[in-house]
């Protein structure tokens, strides 16, 4: 019976996936997102391709990072757009009440929105890495960049979902999520300018990929891991992301949809 129960939950989430894809996403949005992201990435690769570096893998990682940072701008816009459409708009218009009139759990509805958004955005981010991999060859660097992207995207999506759940106005939630994510991105630069180098390095999410590259190339990798404070950055971003996700689920479960 327990197995059947779990099977039912999976089925329910799959049903909501289909509904959510048609409702919030659609082939036009997915196509546009993938094209813009790939174009940004490829442009970034082409721009940096003339830089001469002796280590071919370092070039690859450098290029991948360049593209990944450039694509962050596009990604932040898309994350904010998708979650303001999927959550704020559905709550403010009352459409979410239509779906919740059917026998589906609020928790499953929100998790489906999160997982679908996260997966599609992740595919959009990973695809260009595979392009660059096909140009420069596949290397451990691809894992580093991919891992950094998975983590960064996890933070973006959980943050944006929480924000859009709090603010029901579509435009305000989109603008607010966009702006605050840029502030989060720019905060380490601000700390650098103030001279707080150590704190800036810890809170800079973009340092994860570079930190991992250093760790994996170091002879004493564990010492380097501790020295670079990479562990602290990982704990901060993973912790905040999980906390925001759990908070969102709790808030949505208790929310009055009047």
């Amino acid at each position, binding site marked *: 019976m327990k197995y059947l129960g779990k099977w039912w939950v999976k089925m329910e989430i799959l*049903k909501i996936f289909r509904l959510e894809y048609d409702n919030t996403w659609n082939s036009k949005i997915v196509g546009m997102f993938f094209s813009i992201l790939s174009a940004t990435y490829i442009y970034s690769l082409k721009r940096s391709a003339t830089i001469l570096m002796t280590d071919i893998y370092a070039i690859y990682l450098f290029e991948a990072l360049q593209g990944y940072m450039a694509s962050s701008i596009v990604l932040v816009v898309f994350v904010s757009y998708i979650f303001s459409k999927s959550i704020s708009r559905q709550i403010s218009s009352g*459409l979410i009440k239509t779906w919740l*009139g059917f026998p589906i759990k609020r928790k499953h509805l929100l998790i489906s929105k999160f997982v679908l958004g996260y997966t599609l955005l992740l595919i959009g981010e990973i695809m260009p890495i595979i392009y660059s991999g096909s140009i420069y060859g596949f290397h451990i660097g691809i894992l580093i960049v991919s891992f950094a992207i998975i983590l960064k995207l996890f933070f973006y999506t959980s943050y944006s979902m929480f924000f859009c759940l709090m603010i029901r106005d579509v435009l305000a939630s989109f603008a607010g999520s966009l702006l605050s994510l840029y502030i989060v991105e720019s905060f380490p630069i601000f700390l650098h300018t103030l001279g707080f180098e150590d704190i800036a390095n810890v809170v800079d999410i973009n340092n994860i990929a570079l930190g991992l590259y250093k760790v994996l190339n170091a002879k004493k990798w564990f010492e380097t891991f501790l020295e670079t404070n990479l562990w602290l950055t990982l704990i901060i971003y993973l912790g905040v992301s999980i906390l925001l996700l759990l908070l969102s689920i709790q808030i949505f479960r208790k929310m*009055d949809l009047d």
Partner: protein
Amino acid sequence: MIVETVNLFKRFGDIVALNNLNLHVPKGISGFIGPNGAGKTTTINILAGLVKPTSGSATVLGLDVLSESIEIRRRVRFMQELQPLPGDMTVIKFMRYASMLCDSSIREAVEALKTMGLKNFMERRIKNLSAGMMQRLRLAQALLGNPEIIVLDEPTANLDPIGRLEVLDKIVELNKDMSTNFLISSRIIPELEKIVDWISIINDGKIITEGKVSDLISSDKYNVFKIMSSNNDLLRKIINDYGLECRVEGSSLIIRVKDHWDLYKILSSMSKCRVFIYRIEVLGTRLDEIFRKMVGKNGDTENF
């Protein structure tokens, strides 16, 4: 009772939406009426699990609305007032998802569309439907999954007169053929009176009366007349002078009298004052008159 609430209380900030509501709904077709802001939609939203009560309890089919909400939504279909629909979806796609979510079949979805007269609009986008068509679609989705109860909030809103009659006939038919129970919230009382067996009247978040429609009507000791005269203002003054209640309805006055002696007094005064009667109609006691009297007593709406 298929729906029961005990001291249901709901507060939105400073506003008390439900004030110890004790609602009882038996099997059959039941009406739930009340003026704007009385708490009808809040009650329905609590039953649907969309709004959490501040205190008190509510059960639907013996299931608790807080802990067994999923099971309730499996056995009960809800149609909220002007429920938003996904405008970019086609009618059939929406119904496909609706049937998928309540474990129904696409065949049943098509059948529901046919029943509601939407067979020729299946490929149309919802945003391109008229307001009446959208209301039919909301009703069609409420028919899916052979529910034991269908809760309808203003089901005839936006429908033309023929559409309204069709919907009411369909409700009676479903109740007869499938034993589906209905809880209908509506402001159009004469319409509701024709089909409901039980009525609950709500005002200021409280149930002011509930019971069988026939019992409520027979308990009312008043007679209601509709008089069209040559001088309604003077007639109104005469009626008020006798300490009786009246209200304007179009070019006529509706008066409530306890016995025919009151009517005789009014008619003789009219004759003395040379107010001519063009038409006089015996209305009898109607549900909307009882509603007006009940709600008026609480000082919420115009007197009577």
